[in-house]
């Protein structure tokens, strides 16, 4: 059924349709509306047979999820940014134990300095923890990915993180098509655990593993993610059959057939990029888009295939690997080793900085002329940065850097973006 609603609400409806048995969460912007929405549904008995638990920290949230999933219940939680970091130990524990928990991460920057706005640093900080990571481009895809996530998690016995841009998607009102319970039931069967705490067949879960077997156990985790590379497209195909939509999968391409320049990105910024690409195509540029939906496992072959015929690629990412440059870009480069492509990394939108069509157009045109540096920080205020660097050269007690920069910027309230 078509609805005009907030992204968080769409996700809450999708999760509810998946018949979760235990939901545990701790509030953090910008995920709060999702969990509040689910709480309301439980209270109104629209979502039945579901235990909703208010926990005292994100670490507790993931821990409750671990207990619940190990005892055989379909379990869901949501977090962002600082919360994801706070639960990091438990996040690794969940994937190490092979528990099919589904978690929404409403992507938000990580402090210090504290920042509540969108970027991908939170999810990407956990890229190697063993969870599957999916990135939604629209609220519709966010809704759809949650349904696919439960099925994927339970078939592989591996937890799945569905990432959606905080505020930009979570707090945006958009049209979405909410499936029926029948459709979801047809796609997602009840949870059949591979391992479970059962009084009739007692097992010990979580024992120490020494040097004799640790490598093998860890390899199996990797092997499972390799299986996911096969399973994810299958699940997306099945999804299209039941729900009539092309959603999910490893990657999506747009106008890529004869593209000389390929722009690569994840999440909602793909929408803006596509508008720019349409305009540039009208002006004769041979430019296309590669959207990465599945970041872990990283679809090396699919990415290489998508870039096979282009001359150059530009990775536009809302993340920064401090000390080296791009995160997504580094992963992409691994896919295109030996292909002789020129590659540009652009770090943009950190902490919610707006990414505009105007800036992207100028950026892509420069890339097309191969006039870009290998690493670019989009729309960076070099003035402010250099002033601060000077300040630090002049005095030892130069004060907190962030506060000094803010003073230079002046009042923020009067700005539009």
């Amino acid at each position: 059924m078509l609805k005009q609603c907030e992204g968080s609400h769409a996700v809450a409806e999708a999760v509810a349709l998946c018949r979760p048995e235990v939901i545990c969460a701790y509030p953090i912007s910008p995920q709060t509306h999702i969990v509040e929405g689910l709480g309301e549904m439980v209270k109104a008995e629209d979502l039945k047979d579901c235990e909703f638990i208010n926990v005292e920290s994100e670490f507790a949230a993931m821990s409750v999820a671990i207990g619940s999933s190990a005892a055989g219940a379909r379990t869901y939680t949501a977090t962002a940014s600082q919360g994801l970091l706070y639960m990091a130990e438990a996040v690794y524990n969940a994937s190490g134990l092979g528990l099919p928990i589904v978690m929404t991460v409403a992507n938000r920057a990580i402090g210090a300095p504290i920042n509540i706005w969108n970027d991908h640093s939170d999810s990407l900080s956990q890229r190697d923890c063993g969870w599957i990571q999916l990135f939604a481009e629209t609220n519709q895809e966010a809704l759809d990915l949650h349904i696919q996530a439960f099925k994927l998690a339970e078939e592989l016995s591996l937890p799945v993180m569905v990432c959606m841009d905080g505020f930009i998607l979570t707090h945006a009102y958009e049209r979405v098509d909410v499936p029926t319970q029948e459709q979801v039931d047809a796609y997602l069967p009840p949870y059949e655990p591979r391992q479970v705490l059962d009084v009739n067949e007692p097992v010990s879960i979580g024992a120490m593993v020494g040097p004799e077997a640790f490598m093998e156990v860890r390899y199996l985790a990797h092997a499972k993610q390799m299986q996911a590379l096969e399973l994810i497209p299958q699940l997306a195909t099945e999804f299209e059959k039941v729900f009539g939509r092309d959603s999910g999968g490893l990657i999506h391409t747009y106008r890529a057939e004869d593209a000389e320049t390929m722009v690569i990105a994840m999440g909602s910024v793909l929408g803006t990029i596509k508008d720019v690409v349409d305009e540039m195509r009208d002006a004769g540029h041979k430019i296309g888009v590669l959207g990465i939906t599945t970041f872990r496992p990283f679809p090396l072959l699919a990415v290489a295939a998508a870039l096979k015929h282009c001359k150059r690629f530009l990775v536009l990412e809302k993340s920064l690997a401090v000390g080296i440059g791009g995160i997504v870009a580094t992963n992409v480069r691994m896919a295109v080793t030996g292909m002789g492509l020129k590659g540009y990394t652009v770090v943009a939108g950190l902490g919610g900085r707006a990414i505009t069509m105007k800036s992207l157009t100028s950026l892509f045109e420069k890339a097309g002329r191969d006039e870009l540096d290998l690493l670019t920080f989009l729309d960076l205020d070099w003035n402010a940065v250099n002033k601060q660097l000077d300040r630090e050269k002049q005095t030892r007690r130069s004060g907190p850097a962030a506060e000094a920069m803010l003073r230079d910027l002046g009042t923020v309230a009067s700005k539009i973006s």
Partner: protein
Amino acid sequence: MSLQPVKFYQTGTFTVGNRLLAPEDRSVQANMQRTNSLNSGHRACQGCGEALGARYAIDAAMNASNRQLIAANATGCLEVFSTPYPETSWQIPWIHSLFGNTAAVATGIAAAIKIKKQKGQGKDVRVVAQGGDGGTTDIGFGCLSGMFERNDDVLYICYDNGGYMNTGVQRSSATPPAARTATTMPLGPEPGNVFGQGKFVPAIAMAHEIPYVATATVADLRDLEYKVTKAMGMRGARYIHILVPCPLGWGTASQDTIRMARLAKETGVFPVFEAEYGEIKSALPIRRPLPVEDYLRPQKRYAHLFGKNPAVATIARIQALADKNIRKYGLLAKEGN
């Protein structure tokens, strides 16, 4: 014929007591059908108080729950010695997640059980969470408090040996004042915890006004079984805190574990009591209070308090704490008892 009540006192074994009791009053451990939930073959040290306490506690819990029990375990001595890769000595469904989240994991298990039961897919299975003092009073404290506050249907058992023993005897917030550990040596002019009272979690548990809080020691195993059985007869958040001497960490002889626990109780250093909804209901009485020195002297971790220049003031302060416990928890046996 007049009837005279006769009381039997344990002097260290169950043998005398059990034979004279009706079968239903005998200890769980005396029963040949006991589950041996923590089976033999684990790798605990000689004289480990925790192994003793855990065996009694979990068998009692299994007995009380008709063998429908799942256990969550914190990282620590118990977890390490009970599951030496690739073996496990647990005969029950058991999960070890992390160091600081055991109470939360137990909450999750309880929630899953509740829903399964509601859906007609599962039976009434109970949940026990267990951890040492480190995993309970320090790193696990937040999750513990959360579980209490929500009154989740979990029995949390803390095995308190006063330090992080598995990693080499470092101090925890439960380490008693003046005890020497590997990390309280540099503090102050003498080794031993800078004087504080340690964090007494049973009192904090009482402040949450949960249905049941009790302390116990491995010197009164009968009492321990009774308390676990009683707790299992209740619902909601319950907490049992067991003093379990560690021969290695305390510097005591491995055959003296039970004796040390008894001394802790008889000096008032460790109060043994029960509370419900934040109010003290009963205490195990001290018949003849002993001076704290009797408890401190046998332990090498207190050796620095004695010798040529005994730390008279410190010992006096420890005595004052013990006296305060006796007053506060009503530990002295009443007249005629």
